[in-house]
């Protein structure tokens, strides 16, 4: 497995091998699915749309619907305006979506298609019917990565839809970040038990984890409604989870409607979740319920019970900045040593925060952004680790180096559960922590000689 990967680190300037990121439009498509009644539309060649739908479908095991402008060579020369107009016509006649969210691709971006102008003209000439919402985000695939795309589309929701009515509402805006539908559901549940009204956007729960009923719904039940999005300008505050994915929308909302914002780490682990709870207390002036406090207690209980299995364990982590930073913090809280921490994205947040968390406890840690899995594998060959945590692509490295492996992040194409069980908040963190500890225990059971194979661990 991956036998061609040399142990010696070779400097590379141009060749990316086994990337730890992908391109913008797929993130934007995922974000757009979090609007109720939205049909994402990919403006470019149909290959991109096909790949994005396929990849999201594989991760969620759910129908992922999206249309495309189906560029051909002529379009590449003359521009995509005519294709987008034709696409609107076809889409409204056949699929009649309440919302269309247009994303660009590297092709339409390189040509320089001006989406707002095309959309305005389509509206004026009646191609877009009265009462239909169309939003767009520029998502060139050669800038940033999938998280940038998610962030751009989420910010577009604000730019296109948020309004100020002049009357403030006793509600908060919650931007959950590029997370699983189960995570968004968990966060909403927490706010509901607390009694806090919130507009959560985008909200992919009940969109990419729909129930099996024998019916296919083009526009599933879930997703933030346009009406709800409009009211975000009247909220008390915005809480943006995961700076890379969510701060852009929060900042845009402040600029547009003067809603103050709080940008926090994703609530993974007790410390990060505490910070979220504290912020909610400050914003609403209320106290968390017993249910929430007890969930915290159960998480800490397991941490104290089981931390011995994590203590001093060398861990390698690859993933998106917003997930990796609080995950590192959670592991450090339990005494583990994240020694190699990489992300494919370019992220100052990732560098600074990870450094701050690891500076004292694991000063030897290698922290790199804009990096690939090939590099991480080489590090692991040089000095092995006890555990690897990454998205599905890490499984090849884990097999090659015979290292226990926890799948975390996006995408996961070979297991089930990630979209159903949360890893955020106290309850979600408990779930994630148990997975990590149990993976190490499984390995111990496999490796221990007969005489020290224990019933009680």
């Amino acid at each position, binding site marked *: 497995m991956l036998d061609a990967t040399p142990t010696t680190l070779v400097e590379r300037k141009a060749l990316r*091998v*086994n990337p730890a990121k992908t391109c913008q439009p797929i993130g934007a498509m995922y974000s757009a699915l979090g609007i109720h009644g939205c049909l994402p539309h990919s403006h470019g060649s149909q290959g991109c749309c096909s790949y994005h739908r396929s990849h999201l479908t*594989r991760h969620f095991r759910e129908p992922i619907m999206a249309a495309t402008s189906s560029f*051909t060579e002529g379009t*590449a020369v003359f521009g995509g305006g005519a294709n987008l107009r034709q696409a609107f016509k076809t889409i409204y006649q*056949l699929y009649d979506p309440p919302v269309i969210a247009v994303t660009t691709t590297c*092709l339409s971006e390189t040509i320089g298609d001006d989406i707002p102008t095309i959309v305005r003209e389509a509206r004026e000439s009646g191609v877009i019917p009265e009462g239909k919402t169309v939003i767009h985000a520029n998502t*060139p695939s050669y800038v940033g990565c999938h998280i940038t795309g998610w962030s751009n589309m989420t910010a577009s929701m604000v730019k296109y839809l948020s309004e100020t009515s002049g009357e403030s509402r006793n509600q908060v805006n919650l931007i959950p970040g590029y997370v699983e539908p189960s995570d968004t559901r968990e966060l909403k549940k927490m706010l509901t038990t607390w009694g806090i009204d919130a507009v959560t956007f985008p909200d992919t729960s009940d969109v990419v984890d729909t129930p099996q009923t024998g019916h296919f719904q083009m526009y599933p039940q879930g997703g933030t409604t346009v009406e709800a999005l409009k009211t975000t300008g009247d909220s008390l505050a915005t809480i943006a989870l995961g700076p890379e994915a969510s701060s852009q929308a929060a900042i845009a909302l402040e600029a547009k409607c003067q809603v103050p914002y709080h940008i926090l780490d994703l609530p993974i682990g007790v410390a990060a979740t505490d910070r979220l709870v504290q912020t909610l207390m400050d914003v609403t002036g209320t106290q968390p319920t017993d249910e929430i406090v007890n969930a915290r207690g159960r998480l800490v209980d397991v941490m104290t019970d089981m931390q011995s299995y994590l203590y001093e364990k060398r861990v390698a982590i690859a993933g998106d900045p917003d997930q990796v930073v609080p995950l590192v913090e959670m592991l450090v809280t339990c005494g583990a040593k994240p020694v190699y921490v990489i992300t494919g994205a370019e992220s100052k947040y990732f560098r600074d925060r990870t450094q701050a968390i690891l500076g004292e406890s694991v000063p030897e840690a290698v922290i790199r952004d804009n990096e690939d899995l090939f590099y991480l594998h080489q590090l692991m060959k040089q000095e092995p680790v006890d555990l690897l945590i990454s998205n599905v692509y890490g499984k090849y490295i884990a097999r090659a180096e015979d290292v226990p492996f926890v799948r975390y992040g996006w995408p996961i194409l070979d297991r089930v559960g990630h979209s159903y069980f949360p890893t955020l908040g106290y309850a979600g963190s408990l779930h994630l922590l148990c997975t990590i500890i149990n993976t190490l225990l499984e390995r111990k059971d496999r490796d221990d000689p007969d005489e020290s194979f224990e019933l009680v661990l």
Partner: protein
Amino acid sequence: MDAPSPIDQTTTQTAVKDIVEAYPAKVGKKRAKHIVVRDPNEPEQSIDANVRTTPGIITQRGCAFAGCKGVVIGPIGDVVHIVHGPVGCSYYSWLIRRNQFRARANGRNFVNYCFTTDLTEHDIVFGGMTKLRQAIQEAYDIFQPPAITVHATCPVGLIGDDIQGVSREMSEKLGISVVAFNCEGYKGVSQSAGHHIANNGIMKNWVGTDEGAEEVEGYTVNLMGEYNIGGDTWEIERVLEKCGIEVISKFSGDGSYDETTQAHLAKLNLVMCHRSINYVSEMMETKFGIPWIKVNFIGVNSFAKSLRKIAEVFDDPKLTERVETVIAEEMAETEAQLATYRERLTGKTVFLFVGGSRAHHYQGLFADLGMKTIVAGYEFAHRDDYEGRDILPNLKIDADSRNIEEIHVKQDPERYKRPFSDEAFAKMEENKTLKDYKGMMPDMGEGTLVVDNISHHELDVLIERFKPDLIGSGIKDKYIIEKLGIPCKQLHNYDYGGPFAGFRGAVNFAKDVDLRVNTPVWKYVKAPWLN
């Protein structure tokens, strides 16, 4: 495949009418030409294919890059394939097609790797050639591959990077084959353009380039248009070897660089996926004199038929006898295992929407299981894949295909060699053994439906009308179909099963179909209190 169809002309025609009327008028008119209700009494039914998809239609199609890197070139396992473009295209074509590969003696195996120049805004503005040059050098330094390929994605064509020039230059510098493919995603109308571009590259750069390779005695073949999804190639090879037939090279499942350069040594080319590889087989015939036959190794009877066809070409009693013995042995073994599944599956109906050959290939296997294909179509086929090669002379090339290079090869003065006698060729010509493919339509019975480049809307209507027991399609449709309570078998990458080719593959497939169609879980889709 002659059993009466469970659907008839009238119901099918009504469904088609409803499908077409839902579209904007102009679009409907176009789509109508891509939908054919089969009437065997009308021998020359024709269908529109390989034309643009109307923007806004939710299509199954991908792009030329997917066809070139993803389908044809990518599976060659000991070559480093660099995708020149932003990170996405490379990322999505990484490991998703399940092309299996075993390292040869040199130990090289790169199928699990993903290589890209990961172009950023700076490169798009100032050009990516320096980066590409450097990337090729780094790939060479680290991996020492026998060859490197470069694949262009959409923006590369627009910014005008001369990937051909860079590759030529690096090939000279490094002393290995570096081949560039201008397979930008907007070329042509689907993956099909990419297959053609890949074929041209293979032919121009690799086939026959191992000039020192020695002639090989015996019944030698190349396996073409077979991509070793889930290990298909290995099951086919097992049986061919048992018959005494030697595979020289494979395009491109489990394919290796050295073997590809020796492909000119084979005496016969076996073409599985006609759509994706017929260009190479044609050119090899012109250049080296190697004839080709269309085969189908999917399904028990189809495999047996194809083996007999190979024996017919070599026309040697020893081989014929060996082939018959193998068929008898393998059939007996397979039949015994298939019987129980057939009992459970007979009479069930199937829709098939796959690629540019599989929707046809799999019909025989379903027939082996007693199942009937009532609606079928391809994602990116051309008219000959539906109507047969006889229509080739009448095909007009449209603007979208004209942009794809047509290369014209000439007879190789030294190595052109007809492997069989003139009489043998004459006989085969008379029997239409060689270069013949009748296409999918003749095998589809009365009242069945052929749909080219099906859209989501059409799929939706057809499922509702005909409620098939199983649909063979791809990942994008799978969960739409299953949400409707109908099992879907992915036939692009097999849902992680396989092999499904050959005799043992047929048994695997029967199990796989049975577990989907007959699993108790479908009974629980509706809550009991709703009945």
